[in-house]
């Protein structure tokens, strides 16, 4: 009979936990890797505080113990208008497959949540396929992730298919053809009303633009992660091993926008964060024009963003739907819901109701 024990994570677990997490991620993504540096960055450097973390262990025949599962809650600073909130995202929640009928993971997670929920206003999960299970723990929400992509204004589907060919066959001639195709897309793209100012991570971190951006944007941004320079530095700019470009623009009347784009892949770009303030459809339209041209000029065939289905005002969603495409088989794909749990503390802070959440998904697993 297997013996189990659960306990709080300790720094001496770092190496083993990271190794186990990489193993489990490779079951679905064979190329997945995560350095110990990145794990430490995520665990200890967030402006909201260190990750609350618990491990499940089983006893080996020689009496030693090994990690077979984990639950983590990563503090993320949120704002909702004038309110400052501390939420937590579930991170690295797993149990090795061979123990899934031998250990009650949900009971373990329930105990972790009971231990930590007074520290947070809300907790949420971005992992796929967990909504049904987490409802048993009090998580709610009908919001789902919505992936959107733009390839070309005139030949979107053909460009999309070609981008996947280049992605699957990452050889120089294909990449060069992809860049040439992207240059063609740039010529036919709508002419934008402005050009982005492009920042390296270090420039963005020190820029005047972000020193007061969030004070302006938070009033209309809804329930969303805070974007002070410290938060953005942790999430993006100083993240070990990352390759992000930050694009900013300020209109004459004081409206502002920024996008942070993951440019790790030469052909497929991902918008990992984007804020337009005030959130007006005409501004978003202009932002997307400038973004699509910028992307094509750099030789990328596609740019994607993951939004929550209810997080944006309907007039902005209309722009996203008009300018970007969902996956052709989206309606046949399982819904990827975003379960949320409002703690008693959060219930008090927010007056008992869960507002819509405005979040974007980073397509880089934590």
């Amino acid at each position, binding site marked *: *009979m*297997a*013996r*189990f024990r*659960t306990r709080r994570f300790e720094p001496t677990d770092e190496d083993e936990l990271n190794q186990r997490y990489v193993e489990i991620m490779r079951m679905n993504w064979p190329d997945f890797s995560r350095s110990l540096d990145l794990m430490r960055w995520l665990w200890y450097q967030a402006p909201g505080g260190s990750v609350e973390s618990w491990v499940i262990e089983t006893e080996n025949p020689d009496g030693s113990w090994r990690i077979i599962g984990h639950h983590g809650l990563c503090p993320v600073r949120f704002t909702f208008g004038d309110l400052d909130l501390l939420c937590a995202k579930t991170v690295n929640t797993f149990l090795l497959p061979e123990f*899934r*009928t*031998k*250990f*009650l*993971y*949900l*009971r373990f997670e329930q105990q972790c949540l009971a231990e930590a929920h007074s520290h947070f206003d809300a907790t949420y999960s971005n992992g796929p396929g967990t909504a*049904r*299970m987490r*409802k*048993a723990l*009090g998580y709610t929400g009908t919001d789902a992730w919505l992936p959107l992509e733009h390839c070309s204004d005139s030949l979107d589907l053909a460009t999309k298919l070609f981008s996947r060919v280049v992605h699957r066959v990452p050889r120089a001639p294909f990449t060069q053809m992809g860049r040439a195709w992207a240059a063609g897309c740039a010529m036919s793209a709508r002419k934008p009303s402005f050009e982005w100012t492009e920042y390296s991570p270090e420039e963005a971190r020190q820029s005047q633009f972000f020193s007061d951006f969030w004070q302006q944007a938070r009033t209309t941004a809804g329930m969303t992660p805070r974007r002070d320079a410290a938060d953005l530095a942790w999430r993006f700019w100083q993240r070990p091993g990352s390759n992000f470009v930050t694009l900013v623009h300020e209109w004459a009347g004081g409206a502002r926008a920024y996008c942070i784009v993951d440019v790790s892949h030469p052909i497929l770009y991902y918008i990992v964060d984007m804020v337009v303030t005030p959130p007006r459809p005409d501004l978003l339209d202009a932002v997307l024009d400038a973004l699509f041209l910028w992307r094509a000029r750099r030789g990328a065939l596609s740019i994607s963003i993951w939004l929550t289905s209810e997080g944006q005002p309907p007039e902005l969603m209309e722009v996203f739907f008009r300018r970007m495409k969902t996956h052709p088989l989206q309606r046949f794909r399982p819904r990827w819901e975003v379960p949320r749990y409002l703690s008693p503390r959060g219930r008090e802070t927010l007056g008992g109701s869960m507002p819509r959440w405005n979040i974007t998904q980073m397509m880089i697993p934590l």
Partner: protein
Amino acid sequence: MDSLAANQDQILVPPITPSQIRALIARMDSVIDLDKLKDGTPFADAGADSLDFFNIISEIQMATGVIISDEDIEQVNTLNNLVAFLNARMS
């Protein structure tokens, strides 16, 4: 959680039978295929997922007062095994 609340007044007394457990599962919001769930069939083979395991164990604990620890989970993987375990603990 709804199913737990709905069955809080459901008290099981020994000897517990597989059909009582089956009736309890039938009232749950589960993905278990009851037609496939024979008395000796592992719950997982009848389609039970982590939530179903959690709900079954939670409801059984509530209905019987027997605590099923993490070490015991492997032993209660079928209706027969679960019933034998509960009756042994409650006798």
